[in-house]
Structure formats: structure tokens, C-alpha cells
């Protein structure tokens, strides 16, 4: 860069500071750019006595179905259930935050306790603040619970979008499960009907989502507490006519 000042030519160069390149690389490694091990959809509904939440137990490493025993739905305190899709390590980090939150709440020992609404709002604050720092927790979270007879179900995304609804789903679940729920959900669903409805959604996801595996858990939360089912599989049917001779209509193509 050249400058003429009081008739004198002054030359100064902007040094190429290798420190900058190093700093940028370090700075980048300090924030989440893309997820590595991911969980797929969560589907959750309110029913007569509380909330039902279903997820499969898969953890994908890109296109590889690497982990097949990941619990993506966990109990939080006495009154809430948290389900997560997206980066599994970020989910574990969130569980650590909530663990501390619940611990401090219990330490007060004063008859007050965090309900699902409080946990949901806390998570919304965390997710939104991380997004603002360009270092998101790469998850979509589903928060359900019951406290003092009030049934609560909400969702927070990795950019901090947060809302409540009678039924929610993450990822592919939004496209494949919610249309079913919009047609068939009712406020007075019994437990059995609720499970049937969720299984219907999970079956569609199993057929159509390549990151889904046939090993799922359904969790239930009511005023009494949380129960997470043992893992089980859904019956599938592959004998549809259209699946016989799939290349019949287009020989030579794959």
C-alpha cells in the first residue's frame, strides 16, 4: 500500500500474519460446523393421561448405521421427558446441563420444583443463545411432561425456534408422521390407542427414513411419573405387489 504524505512516499505493507490463519482454524474448531453422530426422528403426542414419546435407538455416522443402542428419550426431574434428534454428543451435553439444573432445584428442598414449562423455556434460552454465538447445539429437542394435572408438550430447534403443540415430531417425522397425527390425533386418546398411533407413525418412518432402525422405545409420562419401555421392533410387511419385480417397468435401470 502506498501513500504520499507531505511529499514523501510512504510505503507500508499489510503483513500476512500467519497467526491469523492459525487463529481462524482454531476459532473454527471451537464451534459446531456439522453433526457427526446423529439420531433421527422423535414423535410425541399428548394423550388422556399425559404424553407419549417414541424414538428409535439408532445413531448414524453419516450414512453408516453405527450405533444401535442409543437411548434418545430421557426423564428430567419428576415431571418431564426429553427426546432429542440430531448430534448425540450435544444431546449428552444438554443432559449434563439439565442434570445440574435439576440438582440445584432439588437442593433448595422447598416444595417448589421445575415443571416441563420451565425446562422447555430454559432449553429455549440455551439453544437460542448458542445459535447467536454461531455455535449451536445441533439438536431438535422435544420436551413433554405433566405437572399439577397440566399436560405440556413442546419443541425447540437448534436455531432456537420454540413452540408447544398437541403433537410434535422432529426431522423426517415432521413430513411423514405429522400428517398422520393431524388426521388421527384426539385429545382423549387412551394409552393403548396412543401407542397404536405412534407405532403407525414409526412404521412409516421405518419404511421411508434410511436412518431409522427397527428397534424403538416408547416413553410415557403421567402425573405418577415416567416409564420408558424396553426396546422392541415393529412388524413390517414387504410383500406389497409394487415391491415384487421392482425393475419390471424399467429394465436395465437400477
Amino acid at each position: 500500500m502506498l501513500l504520499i504524505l507531505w511529499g514523501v512516499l510512504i510505503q507500508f505493507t499489510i503483513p500476512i500474519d500467519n497467526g491469523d490463519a492459525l487463529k481462524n482454524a482454531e476459532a473454527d474448531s471451537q464451534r459446531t460446523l456439522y453433526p457427526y453422530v446423529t439420531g433421527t426422528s422423535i414423535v410425541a403426542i399428548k394423550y388422556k393421561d399425559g404424553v407419549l414419546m417414541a424414538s428409535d435407538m439408532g445413531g448414524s455416522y453419516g450414512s453408516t448405521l453405527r450405533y444401535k443402542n442409543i437411548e434418545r428419550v430421557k426423564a428430567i426431574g419428576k415431571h418431564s421427558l426429553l427426546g432429542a434428534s440430531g448430534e448425540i454428543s450435544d444431546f449428552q451435553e444438554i443432559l449434563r446441563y439439565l442434570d445440574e439444573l435439576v440438582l440445584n432445584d432439588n437442593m433448595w428442598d422447598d416444595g417448589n420444583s421445575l415443571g416441563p414449562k420451565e425446562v422447555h423455556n430454559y432449553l429455549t434460552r440455551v439453544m437460542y443463545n448458542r445459535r447467536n454465538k454461531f455455535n449451536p447445539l445441533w439438536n431438535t429437542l422435544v420436551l413433554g411432561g405433566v405437572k399439577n394435572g397440566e399436560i405440556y408438550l413442546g419443541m425447540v430447534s437448534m436455531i432456537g425456534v420454540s413452540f408447544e403443540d398437541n403433537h410434535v415430531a422432529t426431522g423426517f417425522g415432521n413430513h411423514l408422521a405429522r400428517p398422520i397425527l393431524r388426521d388421527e390425533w384426539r385429545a382423549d386418546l387412551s394409552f393403548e390407542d396412543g401407542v397404536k398411533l405412534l407405532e403407525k407413525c414409526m412404521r412409516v418412518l421405518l419404511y421411508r427414513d434410511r436412518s431409522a432402525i427397527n428397534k424403538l422405545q416408547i416413553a410415557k409420562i403421567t402425573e405418577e411419573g415416567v416409564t420408558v419401555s424396553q426396546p422392541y421392533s415393529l412388524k413390517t410387511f414387504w410383500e406389497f405387489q409394487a415391491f415384487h419385480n421392482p425393475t419390471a417397468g424399467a429394465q436395465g435401470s437400477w
Partner: protein
Amino acid sequence: MFRNQYDTDVTTWSPTGRLFQVEYAMEAVKQGSAAIGLRSRSHVVLACVNKAQSELSSHQKKIFKVDDHIGVAIAGLTADGRVLSRYMRSEAINHSFTYESPLPVGRLVVHLADKAQVCTQRSWKRPYGVGLLVGGLDESGAHLYYNCPSGNYFEYQAFAIGSRSQAAKTYLERRFESFGDSSREDLIKDAILAVRETLQGETLKSSLCTVSVLGVGEPFHFLDQETIQKVIDTFEKVAEDEEGEAGEGDAEAAAAPAEQGGGGAGDQDVAPMEM
């Protein structure tokens, strides 16, 4: 309390295990004008005596809204009280923002007490010279707490602080067992009657007191002068009727002889900053 060689620093213990500066701070609370609080299972009423610096000035604000579900009445150095109220408002609103849920009053008073304690253990600070009656709701219902400059806090069914609060306390001690099930109206009436006790002879007028209410389904708010005057009229009127009929003052409601009272406004030994 007399001066002694251990009372200069807040961080100096006396040989008998007392911190005199903290005790002196509690004296400041006793000099302020009275503040009264009572609670039922569902409501809390805070009332105070309006004291003005002079006839020309307006009275100082002694009751503050902290949140829809928490209010505080102060006695002592009002400047300290104002600062602490701002802290309480800040805590309440931060909790509300993060959890979208009201801060339980029991947790707020602990934060407040811990803050006060810090000032009793730093040589470069002094204790807050204000007592706070904090009334509020949490999951287990209505609560009333008293926070004092020492960093202690206590829960009460009813309490009074400030000058001539003993008269109010005596009145409350006689009646507190019934407060739990009191209706909102009865609670307000008892609060105003307790305020009257601290006036000791002066006529009770609505301009002399401030009353605030909060409860389940009722956010914190002040009662307007009219409402207060109506409540005063119910018991003053009873007294007047009895005076008229029997010609003898009833011990319970002796309002008439109070006309001679110039008692309220003449405290020369109260520092101007204390109200």
C-alpha cells in the same frame, strides 16, 4: 446500647460474640416508620404508615412491587430499601425470562439474605440499614418473610417492623391464629387496624396509610384511597355510633379522643434519611 471499643468495624467481634455494627444496623430499622404484613393461606397484605419529611413534601414510598406475585414493604434507610427492591425485581424478572415461571418467593428471600450477609463480612462494606417484609406466592401458597440487616430471614403469619411496631405486634399476636383462614377483606381490615395501633392516638385517615394486596389469582396492587377509607369508615363508624349511644368510649375503638394528637409528626431524633 452504649458505645464500646468493639463497635467500629463490622468485621470486629466483641468478646461476647456480637457484631455491634450489625446490631446498630438493626436499630436503624427500628427508627423507620412502621410497616406491617399479614397473610392468609391465599393472600398477603402489606401496609405502612405514610410519613412525610415535612408538611410541604410528599411521603416516601415504602412498599414496592417486585413482580405480579411478590411485594415488599421496607422500614429503615429507604435508600438502601430502594436498592434492594431493584435487586429483587432484577432477580424476579431474570427468573421469569429464563423459565417463564414466577420466582418462588422463598428462593428470593434466600438470595436477599445471602446478599445482606456479605455486607456483614467485608471490612469495606456496611450492612444494609433496612428491614424488608417480603410477601409473595409460590407453589405452596402465600408466604410472608422478614429479612433483616444481619442476613437472617424468618417466615411469619403476621409481623410489624419500624417505630411503634410493638403496638401493632401486640394487636396481631391476639389475632394471628385466625389469619390463615381469613377472607381477603378481613385480612385488609386487620392490616389497617394494626396500622392504627402504631399511630397511637392520631386519627386514622386513608391519607396516612398505604395498603397493598396480592394473592392467588390477584396480582400485586395498591388499594386506592377510597377503598381504604371505606374500610376505615366501617370500624370508625361503629365507634362513633357506640360513642353516641352509650356516651362512653369503647376500649376497642377509641378514635374520638385522638383529635388532640399532634403525636405523629414530631420526631426530632430521627435522621432525615430514615423514614
